[in-house]
């Protein structure tokens, strides 16, 4: 008994001693702590299992997408043949991987070949299907041959994945599709340490060919709980949170932090489209009149004002007019409860006064909307839509699912309505519409009930290889008009990327892609 009491006493004393230790003293910051709910996972740039922001830190592409168009990166220049089918890249001669391997045309070819060995996995990206061959012209000249003059070639080569370069020493049996041995790239950061579900430590690449980063280290902390992230940020334990949609920070929290003097906030320009996807092959939603009624029943303005705190702009079409090829005048489907009710009445869906739910041929108008349960914003928006639809006699069941189940449902098309977010520029519109043809995408499944689905898929294929810009714009107009007329999407808003950061952190901004974080540009000002 005495021994037990002694042991307890020692432990409690230790605990109290440890507890009363003062916190670390402030140092001049050379380490940026970034917090995310997600671990970086497998950052093999040729696969899709890792966080894109982390992949972008370590691995680079031949060219980059900027606001001012495509700019050189690992390729210092390029030439496109007259028929638009051959791209010849002159590579930089001063680039080395962080393991010392020289970046040359052989490495580029090996990387392209490794990516092409996994064509099916990259089928969402049309460029993969267009590449016929790759060729080393000389040590620093590389040639890419295409089937057709595919217009988004350079845009897709600049994307965060899969056309990024990893040291060939990391390959497994000359391949990357079954995993890699290491994560060595040419980028401004080197992944030094990774403790799964805890943190990843990136250090500055001192042999980087371009401007070296001002910050020495980036610590990617994994904090699964959103509230804990917010408290840590306000406490100063983390310097940056960054994210699109509501997966990192919802609008309420963002508005609250905007008023705080402990942190700074920034919003990107509208970047992606937030919409509700309507499944055209399901028993009830295959009826165009029902889809029409849904379009008029959702009060988008109230969602933007009440839930998104006016941080996003109202969406009347799937893509905003600022998206390339999307400046098309389409009829606006305003919020109009009476019109929605009239459409349903006319279509034979009559209100049952006992249940207040519409019925037709003995069938109740009950729909199911699925969303990602881990996204607080999606949940609130879904709840609001539920109340909107109740007003017109539709019983909307809302079901939050963990992400894997949500994705499974997308793939098998087992949904009436599903929450959807486009990928933003530079993926929108070409890569996003290209994915409409992929079986595993919710968009494909939802469009299956359309009479002209075959035409839609074929037109998308034509668009991607149309060399004449005017003709291409007309084809885009045709498919967007068709999708709009068929009411496959209820556009809600154009989302923005939100960033909250330590006030001493400077040059916090956005890349063109919402999935990349420009850590390399950031630096710390001396704390006062």
């Amino acid at each position, binding site marked *: 008994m005495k021994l037990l009491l002694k042991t307890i006493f020692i*432990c409690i004393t230790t605990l109290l001693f440890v*507890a009363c*230790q003062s916190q670390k003293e402030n140092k001049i910051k050379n380490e940026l702590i970034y917090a995310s709910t997600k671990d970086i996972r497998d950052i093999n740039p040729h696969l899709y299992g890792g966080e894109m922001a982390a992949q972008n830190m370590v691995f680079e592409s031949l060219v980059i997408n900027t606001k001012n168009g495509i700019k050189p990166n690992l390729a210092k220049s390029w030439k496109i043949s007259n028929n638009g089918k051959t791209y010849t890249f002159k590579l930089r001669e001063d680039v080395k991987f962080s393991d010392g391997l020289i970046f040359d045309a052989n490495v580029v070819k090996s990387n392209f070949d490794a990516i092409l060995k996994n064509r099916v996995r990259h089928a969402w990206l049309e460029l993969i299907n267009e590449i016929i061959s790759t060729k080393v012209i000389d040590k620093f000249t590389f040639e890419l041959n295409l089937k057709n003059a595919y217009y988004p070639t350079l845009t897709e080569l600049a994307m965060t994945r899969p056309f990024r370069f990893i040291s060939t020493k990391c390959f497994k049996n000359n391949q990357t599709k079954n995993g890699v041995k290491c994560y060595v790239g040419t980028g401004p950061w080197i992944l030094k340490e990774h403790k799964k579900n805890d943190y990843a430590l990136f250090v500055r690449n001192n042999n980087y060919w371009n401007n070296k980063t001002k910050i020495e280290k980036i610590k990617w902390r994994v*904090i699964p709980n959103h509230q*804990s992230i917010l*408290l*840590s940020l306000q406490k100063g334990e983390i310097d940056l949170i960054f994210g699109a949609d509501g997966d990192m920070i919802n609008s309420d929290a963002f508005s609250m932090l905007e008023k705080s003097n402990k942190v700074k906030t920034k919003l990107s320009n509208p970047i992606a489209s937030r919409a509700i996807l309507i499944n055209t092959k399901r028993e009830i939603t295959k009826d165009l009149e029902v889809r029409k009624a849904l379009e008029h029943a959702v009060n988008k303005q109230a969602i933007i004002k009440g839930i998104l705190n006016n941080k996003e702009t109202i969406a009347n079409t799937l893509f905003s007019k600022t998206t390339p090829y999307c400046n098309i005048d389409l009829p606006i489907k305003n919020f109009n409860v009476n019109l929605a009710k009239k459409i349903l009445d006319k279509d034979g869906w009559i209100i049952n006064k006992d249940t207040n739910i519409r019925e037709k041929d003995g069938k109740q108008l009950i729909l199911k909307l699925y969303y990602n349960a881990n996204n607080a914003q999606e949940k609130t928006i879904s709840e609001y839509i539920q109340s909107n639809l109740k007003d017109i006699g539709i019983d909307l069941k809302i079901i939050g699912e963990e992400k894997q189940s949500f994705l499974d449902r997308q793939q098998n098309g087992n949904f009436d309505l599903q929450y959807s977010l486009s990928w933003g520029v530079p993926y929108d519109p070409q890569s996003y519409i290209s994915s409409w043809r992929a079986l595993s995408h919710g968009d494909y499944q939802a469009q299956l009930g359309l009479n002209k689905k075959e035409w839609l898929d074929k037109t998308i294929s034509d668009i991607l290889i149309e060399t004449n810009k005017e003709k291409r714009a007309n084809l885009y107009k045709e498919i967007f008009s068709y999708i709009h007329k068929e009411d496959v999407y209820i556009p809600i808003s154009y989302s923005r990327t939100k960033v909250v950061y330590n006030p001493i952190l400077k040059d916090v901004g956005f890349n063109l892609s919402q999935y990349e974080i420009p850590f390399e540009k950031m630096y710390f000002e001396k704390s006062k």
Partner: protein
Amino acid sequence: MSNFILKRILLIIPLLLGVTIVCFILVNINQSDPAEVTLRVNNITVTKEAIEETRKDLGLDKPLINQYLSWISNLIKGNFGISYESKKPVLNELSEAFPITLYLSIFSLFLIVFFGFIIGVLCALFENTLFDKIVRGIIFTTTAIPNFWLALLLIYTFAYYYNIFPSNGFEGLNSLVLPSITLAITYISTFVRIIRNSIIQTKNSLFMTYAKARGVSKYTLLKHQIRNAIAPFIVALNMSIPRLLAGTVIIENIFALPGLGRVCVHAIFVRDYPIIQSYVLFMALLFIIFNLIADIWIIKRDPRLRHFN
């Protein structure tokens, strides 16, 4: 006594077999196909051929009974399988995360024993006084407080407002203070009640009346009361250890501690069945072992039960 212990140890075998059967059935009745899951979490395109190949690799093409037997024989050899997601042995995945959960549980356990015992005894000694009533009120409240809310409250007060502790992550033992307190508080309430009620019951028993009549000192009386009251406390404590280890899931998520709970939750999200199965099996084993220890301890302490058994 030794017969009893041997019998109880032998009983572990069918119990564990039962658990393995339940684990195996649960995974096999799940809608998701393990082969497809393996492909998906590794970002390999799911094709018929790929599924067939993975089925062969995982041994899923064999009859269920063969799969079960092969799983059991691997378990006996200490091979818990390979994680679908990381491709690392499950044992490594679990053992890497286990120390954090263990530290967290040990810290919590000491808080529970220390505060549960002291407050419980004080409440019994000052039965129905203002002190006892206030403590019981606090206990009533803390039992009802949800873990996650208490955790956020503690983070706000001690990490954010007073800046005494880190709010999350594991950077040293002081990272465990707030999570341990969160985890311990509900248990402390339970243990205070157990020890208080036991002492009060013992205080009113006949042998205490006789002892008082014999003129036994107050200190000796208290010693007897505590010795008698400690049995239910120890038994409950024993069963709390596996519960503590298994109950860290929410706490680890809020405080971003990379422990067993996080591994298990992540495994559930990505359907990493070998990890889920091993975690369930490990927890079942802990419950069985601590139950056995509690039984042995009670039998050793009370000879009447030995006779009964």
